[in-house]
């Protein structure tokens, strides 16, 4: 693919970039370009021989056309009605958006959000720029959750699953009466268990506690597979505190990770991304970051994570070996060099004895020098370094051992208290595997009379080895609180339907000293009741509980009044304090402690003395990806179609293997392999992942839902069932496995080769050392070229964008932001296979270097708004035009669909809608942004630089009789970016950020040799190697 690399000859970094395993080998043979544009599909479903069009049919059925209200004559336009308010709310004006501060409830990070609402409908969720932690960022899942609000598969009433057909709908009054009787009986005898997922809401926990206090044997069990339980357990062993510390990444000069995806979906990724970008920024001005210094980031990891792909040095290790390597680093420091306080402890040295770097390196297939180098650099950067564990990439007992070692390393190097805050900014870990095991044991013995399950889907998420399903059948009454009739809800006696996170009240304790509120932004669409409101109603029905409390809203306000107002209100009246809190979305601040924690060395020694031995053979790691996480968003089309940041696969999971392993097994991408762990096995298509250890097989969780809804059912295979029952935690990493070829083929819909720019130099990079010598390093030789075209006159605004490749982590939040803002349709797996995805913004991921240890660059790519745009000159109907502010306009109503423009676009950013994917029925159409035309089939579309946002701000500026202020216009991608990699603004304003950043010596235009003069400037990636 990289045959034309000579174009890059003027640049000093003459690396070969490639996009997929196999590309490197392809370079040997004759270059075969990918088909740029496929010809028109003659019939729906006739793409690459794929005929399964059920999902697409669904989308079409869901898109059953809007019947236009009566037509008076065939030449007359259809009659449309205007339905005004019957009583207009004072602060709602048609066409003027409202913004509400709230908090995201999609994971326990609880990022601050601003929800944009039009005419009472939330249409977009963005990060709250004022929130002290998330600072305006919001991940792909958080932003995509708005689509779930309008999911037609959501429950609309409570359900009694035992009854068949339509009669299974329940009535709240009947259910409350029936459950009230059952519950009042439990006050004297019998047992009640409430199983919930990890939640950061203190008021919810208080409510559950109060609710359970009325029962003789009531207990709250918290469990979530992706909670930070390993960190909590390790904290319990090392520091006698079951809590997760906060990482202070912006104080670190050296970061060592063992696979925790802290820039992707582990811990508090948005806050961490923000902090990480601060220490990784280089620039010529103070405004852009530190001048010639950046933190070094080294990662030992099994599956390549988003975080690992940003490492300066990434060493692939077998899943489970992370512990040994961490101990080897400790061995080198303590025994090899006699450094740190631990060196005087003979007993501890004895425990470390077996982990000499030379021994571990030989076992793990690394070089001992690599381990020693890391140990030396960690020591050099002591009190300014940070060691992070494996996070979701090594869940289980091995993960606990790793976290204990990581705690020791951080404490011994003096990092604890500086880059790790475990005393003030902590989040308690409630999730408990041992509690869950106890619950399952009790259930099996028939000791549980009533079980409440909230916001958790154990039948899907827990390993078969635990036997939850069998245990559930022995519970007398199962009550599930869920928004969907999911796998677990189907087995329940009662399903108490819950609303979406945008329809409820709640709160979040992000950290000690920082509280956020969740406020509803729409009146509940259906007859659902929140878990909290149900607890109140059931408590009242059982008698003697919550007397006089009308709603959870009231309960929440009362709790805040007594518990938080005294501390946070600053003397204001409660009403004023509450109003202010709802306006800002949070109260309190992030405090810093600077205190380190005392190690309980006795417990640590006892724990490390009995580590399991290394297993040989294949190891499976089951990990969450960016889009699907634990599978809760399976019915979200945006997330299903979001290409994985690393593998670029959509609509499927797979068994990722290294290319050496694939060769050994004789499999190619898409060949189905059988992966067996113990008694369980799964059949998955193989995917060849560069940079994966030869003995590791990586499987993505969250797929294989059977009762997610019409979009998410039967997408991929459930791999969570492979998990093993560990003594301390659920084992999802380092699972001993076997793998074999089945002979079947299942094609993966991957976008990694789509829209290829045929090996031309589109990304540029340099080492920090080269950059320090010459800021133009890696980016030489692009002087102004002559042009035949007349120059444009930009006397007003001139909109431009700059993207820092050094800051972009590839997290893909911008892709979803763009999709949500610009009404971009979902096309389904078969059309993605046919290269027909509609994303206006894509993130190209390029590998360079060796296939077993590649370096990665992520490059967001969208319309470059060229000054001499090749698309404009070929359009026969002037549907694409250049405007006086530098924007390349696409006029849908002029476009006749010749697709000449797309063929002439060197950046492959134009999208053609072959079918009417956008014509969706209520409630799905409510998610559309009314400020952007919903495109029909047959027209070309592409990035508009969020023209509707530009117009909105210009409109506001005109109201005030002034020009647009720099930073006032933010494109959707820029707003969502947690690392501020994207800058947008007016280049005619010489002081604007985009003017400054575009002039950076690192700035380059992609394919500048074509002289199309793009409006997007990219900044060279700098590696601290």
């Amino acid at each position, binding site marked *: 693919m990289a045959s034309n690399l000579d174009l890059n000859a003027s640049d000093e970094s003459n690396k070969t970039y490639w996009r997929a395993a196999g590309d490197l080998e392809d370079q040997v043979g004759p270059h075969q370009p990918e088909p740029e544009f496929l010809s028109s599909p003659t019939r729906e479903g006739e793409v690459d021989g794929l005929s399964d069009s059920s999902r697409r049919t669904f989308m079409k059925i869901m898109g059953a056309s809007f019947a236009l209200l009566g037509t008076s004559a*065939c*030449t*007359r*336009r259809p*009659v*449309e*009605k*205007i*339905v*005004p*308010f*019957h*009583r*207009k709310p004072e602060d709602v*004006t*048609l*066409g*003027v958006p409202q913004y509400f501060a709230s908090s995201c409830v999609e994971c326990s990070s609880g990022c601050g959000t601003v929800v944009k609402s039009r005419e009472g409908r939330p249409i977009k969720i963005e990060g709250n720029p004022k929130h002290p932690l998330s600072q305006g960022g919001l991940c792909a899942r958080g932003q995509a959750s708005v689509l779930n609000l309008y999911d037609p598969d959501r429950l609309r009433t409570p359900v009694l699953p035992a009854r068949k057909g339509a009669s299974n709908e329940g009535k709240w009054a009947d259910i409350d009466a029936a459950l009230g009787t059952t519950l009042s009986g439990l006050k004297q005898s019998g047992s009640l268990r409430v199983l919930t997922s990890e939640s950061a809401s203190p008021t919810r926990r208080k409510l559950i506690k109060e609710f359970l206090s009325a029962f003789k044997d009531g207990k709250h069990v918290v469990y979530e597979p992706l909670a930070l339980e390993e960190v909590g357990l390790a904290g319990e062993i090392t520091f006698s505190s079951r809590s997760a510390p906060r990482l202070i990444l912006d104080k670190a000069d050296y970061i060592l990770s063992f696979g925790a995806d802290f820039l992707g979906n582990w811990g508090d990724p948005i806050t961490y991304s923000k902090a990480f970008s601060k220490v990784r920024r280089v620039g010529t001005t103070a405004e852009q970051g530190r001048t010639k210094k950046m933190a070094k980031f080294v990662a030992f990891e099994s599956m390549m994570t988003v975080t690992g792909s940003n490492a300066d040095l990434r060493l692939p290790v077998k899943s489970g070996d992370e512990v040994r390597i961490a101990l080897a680093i400790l061995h080198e420091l303590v025994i090899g060099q006699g450094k740190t306080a631990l060196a005087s402890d003979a007993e501890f040295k004895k425990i470390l004895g077996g982990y000499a770097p030379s021994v571990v390196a030989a076992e793990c297939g690394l070089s001992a020098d690599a381990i020693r180098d890391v140990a030396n650099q960690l020591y050099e950067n002591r009190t300014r370094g940070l060691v992070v564990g494996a996070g979701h990439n090594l869940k289980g007992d091995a993960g606990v051992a790793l976290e204990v070692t990581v705690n020791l390393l951080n404490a011994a190097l003096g990092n604890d208290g500086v880059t790790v805050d475990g005393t003030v900014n902590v989040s308690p870990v409630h999730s408990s595997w041992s509690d869950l095991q106890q619950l399952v044991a009790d259930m099996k013995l028939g000791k549980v009379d009533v079980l409440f399950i909230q916001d958790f889907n154990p039948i899907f998420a827990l390993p078969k080895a635990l036997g939850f399903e069998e245990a559930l059948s022995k519970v007398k009454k199962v009550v599930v609180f869920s928004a969907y009739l999911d796998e677990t809800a189907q087995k329940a006696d009662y399903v108490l339907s819950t609303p979406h996170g945008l329809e409820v009240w709640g709160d979040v304790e992000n950290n000690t000293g920082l509280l956020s509120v969740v406020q509803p932004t729409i009146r509940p669409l259906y007859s659902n009741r929140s878990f909290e409101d149900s607890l109140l109603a059931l408590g009242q029905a059982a008698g003697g509980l919550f007397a006089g409390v009308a709603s959870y809203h009231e309960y929440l306000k009362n709790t805040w009044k007594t518990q938080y107002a005294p501390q946070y209100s600053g003397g204001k009246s409660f009403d004023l304090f509450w109003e202010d809190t709802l306006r800002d979305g949070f109260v309190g601040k992030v405090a810093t402690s600077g205190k380190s924690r005392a190690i309980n060395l006795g417990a640590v020694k006892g724990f490390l003395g009995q580590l399991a031995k290394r297993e040989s053979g294949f190891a499976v790691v089951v990990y969450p990806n960016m889009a699907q996480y634990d599978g809760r968003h399976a019915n979200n089309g945006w997330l299903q179609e979001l290409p994985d940041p690393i593998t670029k696969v959509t609509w499927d999971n797979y068994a990722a293997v290294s290319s050496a392993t694939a060769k050994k097994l004789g499999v190619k991408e898409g060949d189905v392999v059988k992966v067996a762990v113990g008694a369980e096995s799964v059949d998955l298509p193989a995917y060849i992942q560069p940079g994966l250890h030869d003995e590791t097989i990586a499987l993505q969780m969250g797929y294989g839902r059977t009762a997610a809804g019409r979009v998410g059912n039967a997408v991929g295979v459930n791999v969570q069932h492979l998990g093993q029952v560990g003594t301390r935690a659920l084992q999802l990493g380092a699972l001993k496995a076997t793998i074999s070829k089945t002979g079947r083929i299942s094609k993966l819909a991957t976008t990694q080769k789509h829209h290829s720019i045929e090996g031309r130099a589109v990304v540029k990079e340099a080492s920090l050392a080269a950059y320090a010598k010459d800021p133009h390093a890696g980016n030489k030789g692009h002087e102004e070229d002559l042009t035949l075209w007349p120059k444009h*006159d*930009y*006397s*007003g*605004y001139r909109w431009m964008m700059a993207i820092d490749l050094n800051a972009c982590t590839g997290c893909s939040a911008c892709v979803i932001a763009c999709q949500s803002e610009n009404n971009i349709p979902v096309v389904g797996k078969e059309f993605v296979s046919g290269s027909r995805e509609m994303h206006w913004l894509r993130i190209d991921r390029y590998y360079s270097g060796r296939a077993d240890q590649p370096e990665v660059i992520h490059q967001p790519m969208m319309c470059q708004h060229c000054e001499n745009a090749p698309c404009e000159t070929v359009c026969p109907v002037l549907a694409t*035009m250049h*405007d*006086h*502010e530098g*924007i390349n*306009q696409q*006029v*849908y*109503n002029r476009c006749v669909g010749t697709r000449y423009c797309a063929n002439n676009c060197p950046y492959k950013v134009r999208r053609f809608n072959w079918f009417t994917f956008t014509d969706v029925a209520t409630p799905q159409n409510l998610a559309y942004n009314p*400020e*952007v*035309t*919903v495109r029909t089939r047959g027209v070309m579309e592409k990035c*508009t630089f969020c*023209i*509707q946002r530009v*117009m909105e701000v210009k*409109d506001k500026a*005109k*109201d005030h009789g002034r020009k647009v202020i720099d930073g006032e216009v933010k494109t959707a991608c820029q707003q969502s970016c947690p690392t501020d990699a994207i800058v947008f603004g007016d280049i005619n304003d010489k002081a604007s950020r985009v003017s400054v950043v575009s002039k950076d010596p690192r700035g380059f235009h992609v394919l500048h040799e074509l002289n199309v003069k793009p409006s997007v400037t990219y900044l060279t990636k700098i590696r601290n190697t």
Partner: protein
Amino acid sequence: MNVTDNNSDNKAGNKNDVSQKGIAKKYKILGALVFLIIAGTAVSALRRTAVNQGYAPTQPIPFSHKLHAGQYNIPCMYCHVGVEKSRHATIPSTNICMNCHSQVKTDSPHIAKIREAFESGKPIEWVKVHDMPDHVYFNHKRHVTKGIACETCHGDVKKMAVVKQAKALSMGWCLDCHRGQNKELPASIAKAEVENPHGTGIPKGGVAPVSCYTCHR
């Protein structure tokens, strides 16, 4: 092989050709006529489709602008409250009608309909008169705050008992003003220089931007 036979065959063939040509010619004329008729109908139909000028549908309640805006001189903005705040002028909500009609002319059967709607909470479904295509993003606020009178686009509503679409509201009609070629515009606006002079083919003295994204996005 017989030469004569071959010739006769040829002649027969030629004859056939001639007659077919004749028919073809007739068909061509007929075809052209049919095409013209169809095209003519289509063009006139399309013109009428695209331009709804003169459209005056019957409304569920025969509200008279002539009475309210004309005779009683109620300002447009008393009812169309969004016009200065939003791109939509907004059709008044029922509670605005009831501001007066809770007291005024309460015995009218039409007012009874409004009262009923107000009390039941079921909004009145008015028929849209000025119906722009969905890809047009016209902004009332920008035009009204610039000092363009409602009548410039909506005609003399004060004299309309039944509201009708007075102007073409076509793209060309919009551009006339944006290029400063509409003599009906007040001089203060028509003579103002455009904020961002740009592009080709726009006469000097243009008053508003004419790039595609001004109205389409």
